[in-house]
């Protein structure tokens, strides 16, 4: 679908009015063209903007991976930690100054592999931080190795005969760890992301956002834009996010229902 010149001009004008560039920094993201992270970036910026948060009252904490550099692409305070350690770092930040709004951004490798031991504890501690897990099921920065959420049998240079390890389901893990707010989102829907992020940011306690995204450079078969657009759909209208058992049932039956899965106030 082609966009006309006028439509484009309107869009740009809208963007300008939304003050979204106040949240964006002047650094150019290092992500590949077409990367799903741009959508998440847009969604988070929109959320911060719409909540009226001042950039100096927000801290964005990242680990290592393609999402690691994220703090440089926002105008909030940022902390680019080591591999896997964004979550405990953010815990320290939030406990030290509860007036700050804290976002953790990181990939599935950072959060499910090397940092996988921290997710249960930030959840059970119910620290009021917002954790955005960018799940593209691949190690992008190191050029395409399988991650803990890769499909069984995935072939790569590091797994030429196919992986033998079953994938983890981050949403289900967060639910079972006792996270008090769990949403599943799709990078292709920045407005949905912004909406859910706003709800989660306002939520007092740990909020987990499992965001399906794509690696356009190293994943040509699984979580591609086409597949994700085809598979992802909103949670059923009658889904009751206050019921943990139903939330878990939903996640186990359907890996692609998107929206707020669970919340407990």
């Amino acid at each position: 679908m082609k966009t006309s010149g006028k439509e484009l001009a309107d869009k740009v004008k809208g963007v300008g009015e939304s003050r979204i560039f106040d949240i964006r920094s002047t650094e150019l993201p290092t992500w590949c063209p077409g990367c799903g992270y741009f959508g998440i970036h847009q969604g988070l910026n929109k959320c911060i903007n719409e909540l009226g948060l001042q950039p100096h009252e927000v801290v964005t904490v990242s680990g290592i991976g393609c999402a690691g550099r994220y703090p440089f692409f926002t105008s909030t305070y940022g902390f680019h930690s080591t591999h896997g350690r964004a979550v405990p770092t953010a815990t320290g930040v939030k406990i030290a100054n509860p007036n700050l709004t804290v976002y953790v951004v990181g990939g599935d490798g950072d959060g499910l592999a090397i940092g996988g031991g921290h997710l249960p504890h930030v959840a059970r501690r119910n620290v009021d931080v917002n954790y955005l897990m960018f799940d593209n099921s691949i190690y992008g920065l190191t050029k395409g190795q399988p991650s803990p959420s890769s499909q069984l049998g995935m072939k790569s240079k590091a797994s030429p005969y196919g992986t033998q390890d079953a994938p983890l389901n981050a949403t289900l893990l967060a639910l079972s760890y006792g996270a008090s707010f769990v949403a599943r989102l799709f990078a292709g829907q920045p407005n949905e992301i912004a909406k859910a992020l706003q709800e989660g940011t306002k939520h007092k306690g740990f909020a987990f956002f499992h965001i399906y995204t794509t690696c356009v450079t190293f994943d040509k078969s699984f979580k591609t834009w086409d597949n994700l657009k085809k598979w992802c759909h909103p949670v059923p209208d009658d889904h009751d996010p206050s019921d943990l058992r139903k939330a878990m049932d939903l996640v186990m039956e359907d890996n692609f229902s998107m929206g707020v899965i669970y919340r407990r106030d």
Partner: protein
Amino acid sequence: MPKVDVTIEICGMAGDGTIAAGGLLNQAMSDSGLSVIGFDSYPAEIRGFGRCIARSRIGDEEILALEDRIDVLISLDDTQSISRTPLLTEHSSVFFDSNPPVHIEEEHSLAAQVEPGTMLYGMPFADLASEASGSPRGRNLTALGGFAAVFGVSPEPFHRVITAKFQSKGEKVVDANIKSFVAGFEYAQEHFSDRIQQVFTDANGMEGPERIMLSGNLAIGQGALDAGLKLYFGYPITPATPIMEYLAKKLPETGGRVVQMEDEIASIAAVIGASYAGSRSMTATSGPGFALMTELITHGVMTETPAVILNAQRGGPSTGLPTKTEQSDLHAAVFGGPGDSFRIVIAPTTVSECYTYVVKSFQLAEKYQTPVIVLTDFFLDNRVENILPLKATEEETACANVFPDESVMGNYRRYQVTESGISPRSVPGMEGFVFSATGLEHVEKGTPNYSPEIHMEMSGKRFRKIRGALKEMPPPEEFSDGGSLDVGLISWGSTFGSVLEAVNMCRHDGLKVGALKITSLFPYHDEIIRAFMARCQHILIPELNYQGQLADLIGCLYSKDVIRLNLATGTPMPPSVIEKKIREILS
């Protein structure tokens, strides 16, 4: 030289009240005006298994170290105590239970193992305690009563400390324990009248204000509290756990909090996160945990974030000897982790220094925007000393962070290259000074950059900054008669007390020997150390590690090879071993 200098060991099985008795003994002797160092050792296993030893050295002059000898052995379990008999001095005294419930074979009998010079004081501990209080549980106190009677210690301080210890459990418990003590005291007075030693009867003790009994760990905890600690993140590990437990109780009283994290990596990550957000925070760990922390410590170096990390060293490598003392993490503390990661490392040598150095570490960390590693060891953490009360001044605890001023608002360069290397540091929440910290090499604004010039410049800035901290760090202290020395000893950490005692003995005999205490280990005062070394015929560095880590670190400052005295026994360095080595060098 002191007139009174007695080493007492109470030895029993876990559950015998050994450590409790040691605590009461130390406090009572301290209250009697004597100088006390106490050091307990207990098994790594849970209650009910293994040997517990409460060791105390008590004297009328300041006690600097523990010696590997026992003048008085109070046995609450003969099987456990037998292994201690080789350490008994020629004219030692042994208190033991003379009426065990069953007959014991010769090979299991403590009395059968001692040398004839040892004075045996057999007392029916359990029977006396039962008669006095209705339960044999107080037999540890009965034993203390016997000791007090024979060695001429007044029972009053014991009554006071027993009351203080058991007060919270009610009058009945206090009464039962005092009765058990008195039963032992009276039994000994009656039965050992011909063998009363009265060692402490005329001990005048030390002059000056009242002293308090404190362990290294509690001094660390107290120092952190007084320094204005807000957050402690930690993970249980021997021997650092008591610091966390102490703060867990005390920090909430000052509005602070202890968070027990999921591992040591999370602990240091949270400390760095909290410090980045402007809170005084710390963690304490031991070797294995410290190893896990090193990556993030260097992250603190790179992001120039304050952090206080206490490493209570134990025997290593790996899990090593969890309940034994060693000084083998010096290299890990100074060099551990990736890259040129200059950080501050300080090591107290006494319980008092544990307090003052922890207080100091927060200001150093803030002012120089760096992780500060405080190195202690099992012996220093767990030993108790009766010290003069400590209280940090407002000046010593004031915030030392250099904040950016308004002139740079909007154009803030977090990592501005300065002559001192110190760049003004903002914290989240401050408007107009937003920045992102990163473990990647970066330019002044903080954005990642890998160019050769930047890496060279920023490495230089970070190094200058740490080097500049030296002027505020505790300088080496010399203990000698000055002039040229035949042997100069250099020492650090808990070993220093032993070194000083050995050096004092040698100086008393007219030998030209001196000691240099080093507490700043990185950066270190190279000029002072070099000048000291230049005045010495020989340099001897005694350490509790196998390779001689301090010798490796500062040996390059000496024109000849330094002489190493390396002990990896897991036990404190005995002064006599050092003294022997000095005399060997001089002969």
